[in-house]
């Protein structure tokens, strides 16, 4: 489904990603772990189409298309989704209105009729229960004044509404207490199917107790230096990243 080959990219002449190779198939959950500054979030933002990165080499193929050739909104229409590490506040724009615009943009692309306000509300009520979100949040401006946990849950609500084929979750666990973490993970697991895939980016192993990956990759200095089964995450939790870095240096 997603095939990253030798991806090298940086910002303002400073290299951040130094040749990433990663292949993800339908039905799989991959986790990327790594120390701060290893390039995890850059990879997530770049995949979602954020401007400002200089891509010096490599390719990303998504469902047979050149992903890097698509604008961010086109990627969404092709079923790509990024749950933001820092969801952006948009004052004055009602959350329900925003979500409906997003869903209808996708439906229009698929040739499906627009959802009217009533039908949309029905759909949304169903999804918010999944995330145990307070309905009153939906009447507020997008992410404005939401707590850290509410923002993250709202991201997964958006994911549930857009029902992506490929989702990247960028540090979705940061800032969540254990109960919220369970709710968010439950939501993500609920959306998992045989025909879609997820890439979970995290700093800590604990998220992976709830979203169990098929593969774990370790990102250090913009390169995947080790890949393994889910047990690798436990080893990282116990031993930290230094041993891998030393292993690399040796």
């Amino acid at each position, binding site marked *: 489904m997603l095939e990253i080959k030798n991806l090298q990219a940086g910002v303002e002449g400073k290299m951040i990603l130094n040749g990433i190779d990663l292949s993800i198939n339908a039905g799989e959950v991959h986790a990327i772990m790594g120390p701060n500054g290893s390039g995890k979030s850059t990879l997530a933002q770049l995949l979602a189409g954020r401007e400002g990165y200089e891509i010096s080499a490599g390719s990303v193929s998504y469902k047979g298309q050149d992903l890097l050739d698509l604008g961010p*909104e086109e990627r*969404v229409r092709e079923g790509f989704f990024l749950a933001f590490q820092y969801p*952006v506040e*948009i004052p004055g724009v*009602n959350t329900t209105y925003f979500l409906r615009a997003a869903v209808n943009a996708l439906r229009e*692309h698929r040739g499906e009729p627009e959802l009217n306000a009533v039908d949309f509300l029905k759909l949304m009520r169903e999804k918010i229960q999944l995330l145990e979100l307070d309905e009153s949040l939906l009447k507020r*401006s997008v992410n404005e004044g939401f707590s850290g946990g509410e923002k993250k849950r709202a991201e997964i609500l958006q994911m549930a509404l857009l029902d992506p084929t490929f989702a990247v979750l960028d540090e979705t666990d940061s800032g969540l207490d254990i109960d919220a973490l369970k709710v968010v993970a439950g939501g993500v697991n609920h959306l998992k199917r045989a025909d879609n895939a997820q890439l979970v980016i995290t700093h800590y192993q604990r998220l992976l107790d709830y979203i169990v990956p098929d593969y774990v990759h370790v990102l250090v200095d913009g390169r995947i230096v080790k890949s393994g089964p889910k047990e690798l995450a436990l080893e990282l939790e116990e031993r930290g990243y230094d041993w891998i870095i030393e292993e690399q240096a040796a």
Partner: protein
Amino acid sequence: MSSESEVIDQFVEQEYKWGFYTDVETDTLPPGLNEDVIRHISAKKEEPEWLLDWRLKAFRHWQTMEEPRWPHVNYEPVDYQAISYYSAPGAKDKDRPKSLDEVDPKLLETYDKLGVPLHERERLAGVAVDAVFDSVSVGTTHQEELAKHGVIFCSFSEAVREHPELIQKYLGTVVPYTDNFFATLNSAVFSDGSFVYIPKGVRCPLELSTYFRINAAETGQFERTLIVADEGSHVSYLEGCTAPMRDENQLHAAVVELVALGDAEIKYSTVQNWYPGDEDGHGGIYNFVTKRGICKGDRSKICWTQVETGSAITWKYPSVILRGDDSVGEFYSVALANLAQQADTGTKMIHLGKNTRSTIISKGISAGKGQNSYRGLVQVGKNATKARNFTQCDSLLIGSRCGAHTFPYIEVKNPSAKVEHEATTSKIGEDQIFYCNARGIETQDAVNMIVNGFCKEVFRELPMEFAMEAQALMDVSLEGSVG
């Protein structure tokens, strides 16, 4: 893909959709301004002697005045002798049309094109319209129905002929002819406009609306509107304005006076969409307007709502004098300065009565090379015990070549007053646009969504029919802003 800078660059490629010109025969005075011109205008309108005298007094006073230089705007000095002060559709020797049926079909067509049909069968339901074309009113709809309720809604010229006692009683009582350079000029040369009188205790059954259209070249439009709401009455009034696209600047210097007697309420809304000129600042309307209302009676209320998207330069401060006790003044404004537009706009709330309250919500949007200034005065007189004001003044910047400025003035002479001022400045960020993109929303839609969200508090103050129009207008004004 579109970066923020591209968004901004293409902001200027929008199109002004109301820029057409109607080719009609006109009766136009040659350019120039002197006492003869004023006598001529007055004679054309068959005005009584007292009104001509008032005009002449204004003109003589105007000659002693200097054009204000304090607004935060730049423009070449206006040559007041190069402007024609009167232009009316129709040949010189023709009588004015007695009813809409006699109006030149070309004029009716113009209003159709502007989306303000005047014909009986296509008229907007629930809205009575006075259509002003250059210097004259071409017709007013729904007059009979309004008359049943005792409501007078007609052109200013007609009011001078039919209701001289009301005009003489109220004209210049809110904006005296000595008020300021542009208001004084208007007092000397005003041509037409609308007059509204709502009798005691009447809630006006229709929305009233005046649509101003500048058509002729090298003319100025100097309309004058007077609205009187008698005790316990209620009226909602809306004005709209457009003009053809021209390379020369045209002057629009209007005066609006509102009088609210005891327990009366006037809601005055403006959707101003004069031609804004091009991105280099060529052409466009100079919109130098004096609007002021007086809450004369106790518990009266005046509410100004304005959506200002057009004009090369906007200079206007719709104000309320809160004379009656417990009276209320409100000002809700959205001003967009795009292209090379300059806006210096705001309000004055003058608290004189006890327990008077005022609210100011100003939303300034700057884009392109636009410069947007909020200028507001809150004044509390020494007898205005327990006066209250709340001001919120927000600026939104789109791009890095525009500017937002705030000039609040507060003068309080009564210690029991409570005056609050809040201000914010924000920028449509790359982050916000990317977040919308990452949810499948196109950049243009994202910009519109954020701008409309920013303006929401003001749009919801507009009568329902016009709130939609204002939002659509804002979208069009932002059109072409993305690639």
